[in-house]
Structures are given as structure tokens and as C-alpha cells.
């Protein structure tokens, strides 16, 4: 049984992405007791799936490493992975939270040697790579996973693979009898850092993400560029594995559209501008990008990044929301069709690959979860006195880039600390 001590001076942070880690650490480093929950087997979240950050074009692994170092060094943070909140009741300074802990089937003896993964045979779509490749039924979520411990997919439990994995383990780390656990926590303040999910591109039927191999999403492109990713860092066409040198980007794929997401997801313009630089990085002068946009929203000081990209002759901008994408049956090239607003010219342009700059939507539907918190029309948490001691951090509050998510998480941490100080004051 997992032992967790919590009081009404404890802060619960839900979600172990960049915002959740930041919020948890800021509070813990102020001396508060923090429990950090993550529903996946590892901390890291969406940011760990990025190749590079904008605007500095540095790797997110470095920030991840610093945060993990801080977590390991701080006894005030208790990390629980494979953990989900199922119910919240009570009020500010006195919440009762029910948490479900799913079995990992691997205990703390694990040395991450990988013998179990070698032993098993069944494969499943790799969530970390948005299904671009497969992983084994016994796996390490990704190379920087924390805790650095393998996981058994619940689908192999009860099959021969589970026994093979157990037999292969040299450390007695595999425990096939692990069960789902329920925990009741006494909590003073809750920070929801539940983050975002990419809008389901299959829903945008005219763009054919579900029909054409060479129509991918921006998050899939990030995985392709990762040297440890499914293509070993090569940007290729999924249809034939050839290099994708001439790439089109479709902006507002799902965002600013009353049929899909009403809000502007704010990050997609910068993400695309960043991704156009990947083409130059990978193919030099042979790399070409064309961006189809309604208007480019490179927010505040990112304007100079936009200006820099615009100066590149290999990167073109076409002011038009693409009407539809069809496929050239001979070579599987996607063909974009529409009308260019600047001159009203009709076009049908062929590319090696199309990247849909998909929007951000909240990953949790708080209403259906029955949690009494104020959300806006787009499902993001509003800052509202009604929420009492519950606060949103990062993309649970709005579509934000990493920089703003971290700022937002720090602010939420301070709000939670204020609640805990009031509780502590009242308790003497």
C-alpha cells in the first residue's frame, strides 16, 4: 500500500508537466508540503515531446534535467505517477481528494536495465511519439523518464509476455499482483496543472489527416525531428520514407474556427515559424517552407523572430485559409487548394508534406469530472473567487507557450502558498 501523509497544509498539484513541476517546486522550495500527481508513468508532459523551444531554439531536455534535479533534491515534494484525481469535495483549506493509483507492475527495485523489454514481444502504438512508431508491452516511457523505471502495459497482464518479463528481470522488480489503489487525501489547496492536448486533426475533414499519409500535425513533426524519435531525427514523408524538403504549413488547424475550437491557440504561429527553421537546419538551401495563414500572430516580442523568418527567401507566406487538401495518387503528394486573399488567386499547390498547426485544447473536461471549478467557453479554468483554494497553472488556464505557462504556474504557486499560510495561521 502506498503511504502518503497529507494534511490541510499540503498543496496538491495535479499534472506533472512543465507547469505542474514548476508550481510544485516553487511551493516546495518555499518550505510547503507538496504532492505532485501525474496520470502518465513519467513526469515531463508535452514539453518533453518537443524537439526545440522557440524563440531560442534550445532543447527542452535541459530545463527538464534542471527540474528533475530540483525534485530529487527536495524532500517536500512527493511525486505520484499513474495517479488520477477522481473526486474533490470540501472547501478552501480543507479539501478531501480521492486519488486512483493505477498499477505500474514494476516496483522501486527497477534499475531500468531493459531486460523486460527485450523479453516481451507484443507491441503497442507509442503514445510518447503520437503513435508514429510502436513500443513494447514493457517499456520506459522515454529516455529521461522520471521515475527512471520501466512500466508494464496493462494489456500484457495475464498474457505470456507478463511472465516472460518477470522471468527476465534480474532484480525482482516486476510485481504482477499490483492492484489499483484508492487514496483519500486531506489537502489545503489544489493547483490544476492538467495541461493541454493537441486538437484531434482527424476532425478537420477537408484536410484529410486521417486519409493521407503525408498530412501530419505539428506535434508529430516535433517527434520526427527528435534525434531519439521514431525517425531518428529525419524529417521524412510517412508514405515512402523519402526526405520531405518542400513542406507546407496550414495555420489555424482547428483554432479560431467555430466548427472546432473557438479560441486562438496562440502558440501555433510561433511553433510553425520555429518549424520552418527545422527545414533549413536539416536540408540547408534545399529546404523550403510555405505557410498558409489567416494572419500571423507572433505575440509581443516574438515579432522579431517572425521578421527574421520572413527574410529567408526559401520561406514563403500565403494569406489564405486552405479550403481542402487532396492527394496526388501517383506520388502521394498532398495538394493544397484555395484562394489567396492577396489578389484572390486560385491555387492548387503540391508539396512533399503538409504540417497542420493544430490548436491547443484543455486535456481535462472539469465539468464532466464533477469538479466545482469555473471554466470558460473553451474549457480553460477561469480565475474566479468561486474556485476558493483551487487554482489553474499553465495550459489548464489558457493556451500558453512554455515561457508563459511557467510564469503562470509560479503565480499559482504563490496563490496556493497564501491559502496554506492562512490555514497555518488559523491553526496556530
Amino acid at each position, binding site marked *: 500500500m502506498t503511504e502518503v501523509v497529507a494534511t490541510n497544509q499540503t498543496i496538491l498539484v495535479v499534472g506533472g508537466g512543465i507547469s505542474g513541476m514548476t508550481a510544485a517546486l516553487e511551493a516546495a522550495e518555499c518550505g510547503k508540503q507538496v504532492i505532485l500527481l501525474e496520470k502518465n508513468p513519467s513526469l515531463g508532459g508535452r514539453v518533453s515531446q518537443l524537439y526545440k523551444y522557440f524563440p531560442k531554439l534550445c532543447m527542452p531536455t535541459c530545463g527538464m534535467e534542471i527540474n528533475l534535479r530540483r525534485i530529487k533534491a527536495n524532500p517536500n515534494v512527493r511525486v505520484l505517477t499513474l495517479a488520477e484525481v477522481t473526486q474533490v469535495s470540501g472547501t478552501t483549506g480543507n479539501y478531501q481528494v480521492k486519488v486512483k493509483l493505477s498499477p505500474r507492475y514494476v516496483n522501486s527495485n527497477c534499475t531500468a536495465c531493459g531486460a523486460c523489454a527485450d523479453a516481451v514481444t507484443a507491441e503497442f502504438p507509442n503514445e510518447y511519439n503520437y503513435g508514429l512508431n510502436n513500443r513494447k508491452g514493457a517499456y520506459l516511457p522515454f529516455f529521461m523518464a522520471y521515475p527512471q523505471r520501466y512500466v508494464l502495459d496493462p494489456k500484457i497482464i495475464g498474457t505470456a509476455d507478463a511472465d516472460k518479463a518477470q522471468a527476465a528481470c534480474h532484480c525482482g522488480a516486476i510485481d504482477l499482483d499490483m492492484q489499483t489503489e484508492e487514496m483519500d487525501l486531506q489537502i489545503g489547496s489544489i493547483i490544476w496543472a492538467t495541461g493541454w492536448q493537441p486538437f484531434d486533426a482527424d476532425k478537420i475533414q477537408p484536410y484529410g489527416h486521417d486519409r493521407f499519409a503525408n498530412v501530419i500535425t505539428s506535434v508529430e513533426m516535433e517527434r520526427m525531428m527528435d534525434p531519439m524519435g521514431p525517425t531518428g531525427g529525419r524529417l521524412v514523408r510517412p508514405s515512402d520514407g523519402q526526405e520531405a524538403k518542400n513542406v507546407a504549413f496550414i495555420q489555424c488547424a482547428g483554432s479560431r474556427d467555430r466548427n472546432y475550437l473557438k479560441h486562438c491557440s496562440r502558440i501555433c504561429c510561433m511553433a510553425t515559424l520555429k518549424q520552418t527553421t527545422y527545414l533549413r537546419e536539416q536540408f540547408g538551401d534545399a529546404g523550403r517552407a510555405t505557410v498558409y495563414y489567416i494572419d500571423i500572430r507572433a505575440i509581443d516580442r516574438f515579432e522579431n523572430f517572425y521578421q527574421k523568418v520572413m527574410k529567408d527567401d526559401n520561406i514563403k507566406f500565403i*494569406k489564405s485559409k486552405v*479550403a*481542402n487538401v487532396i492527394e496526388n495518387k501517383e506520388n502521394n503528394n498532398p495538394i493544397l487548394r484555395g*484562394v*489567396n*486573399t492577396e489578389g484572390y488567386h486560385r491555387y492548387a499547390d503540391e508539396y512533399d508534406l503538409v504540417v497542420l498547426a493544430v490548436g491547443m485544447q484543455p486535456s481535462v473536461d472539469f465539468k464532466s469530472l464533477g469538479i466545482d471549478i469555473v471554466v470558460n467557453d473553451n474549457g480553460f479554468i477561469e480565475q474566479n473567487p468561486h474556485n476558493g483554494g483551487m487554482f489553474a497553472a499553465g495550459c489548464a488556464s489558457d493556451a500558453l507557450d512554455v515561457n508563459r505557462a511557467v510564469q503562470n504556474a509560479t503565480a499559482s504557486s504563490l496563490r496556493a502558498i497564501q491559502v496554506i499560510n492562512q490555514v497555518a495561521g488559523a491553526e496556530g
Partner: protein
Amino acid sequence: MSNTAKYRNDFLKEVEANVEEGEWVKMCMQCGVCAGSCPLGNAWEHTPQKIFMMIRAGKRDEVLSSDAMWMCTSCYNCIVRCPREVPITHIMHGLAHYAKRLGLVPANQPTAKFAQLFWNNLSKRGRINELTLGLGLYFMNGFVEGIKTSIKMQSLGLNMIKTGRMNVMEIFGGHSVKDTSGFHAMLQKAEEIEATRIK
């Protein structure tokens, strides 16, 4: 006249007041998805995207005498894809209707001509007379043209008669709704209401 008069967009206000769903025109953000999605886009003088921009630019004569709204086949692709849920098809029909009221329909516009034929036929007895409507359509562009088309469509007509879809006796007036005078009173009332609504 002040210097700013040329920038005052009276035509947008006119459209908002007189065209069905006209108040939506200002919501267009010129993304172009309607223009790109229109299956007849190549065949028109102006796509919806262009028409909306022209309305906002005050190009009254060009808009109202355009053939664009008459070419719309009501496939609804534009409405379905419009990110702002602008009722584009309805606005196009509204513009056609308004141009018709003002007598600005381009001469010999075939859709407009057929619409008039259809209306004349329907408003007589409250039912469409397939035979006279069909013949009216064939002879729309003159007698010789009409004879040629009739000969070409002969087998279709005969098949329709055989299967009971058309009756040759319809040439003498044809079937009608039960209460023809009531139907006419209704149409007249509708016209009165519309006259007060649209100036």
C-alpha cells in the same frame, strides 16, 4: 460634402438593412475558405469572399450587378467550412433577391430567368405545372432553340408521360391547390409584409 464622405460606407448599412442575413457581412475575416471551397468558384465573376469585401468597400453597382449570387448552387460547402459560421449561401441568395427588387439583375442571366419562370408558374395555381414549366424553359432563348431542345429531350418527356410523372392535359391549365383564391390572398399578404420590411 466633407472630406470623409468617401470613406463612409453606406452600402454596408444598406446591405445590413435590406439583405437577408446581411448583418453577418461584417463578420467575414477574409480567410478565403469559402472561395476555395466553392465548386463553381472558377465560373464566377466574384467569389463570396470577394463580394463581402466589395460590400465593405462600398462597391454598390459592381456587387448588385454581379452574376455571382445567381451562380450559387446552394451546395452549402461554404457555410459548413466558414470558421465564423457566416451564413454565406443565405447572404448570396439575399443579395440576388435584393438585386432583383432593384432591377439590377444582369441581362439574360439564365438562373434569374429560370427563377422568374418558376415563380410565374407556381404562383398561378400553387402547384408546379411540369409541362408548361419545361416548355417555358426550352423556349426561354427563342423559338428555334426551343424546338431543338424539345426534340433533344423528346424521349425524356415520353418516359415521364409513360410513368405517370407528367400529364399532357396539363397544357390546359393543370392541377392546382384546393383553395386557389386563398393561396393568392396568402401571397398578396406576404408581399405586403415584405414591402413594409424592405424599403
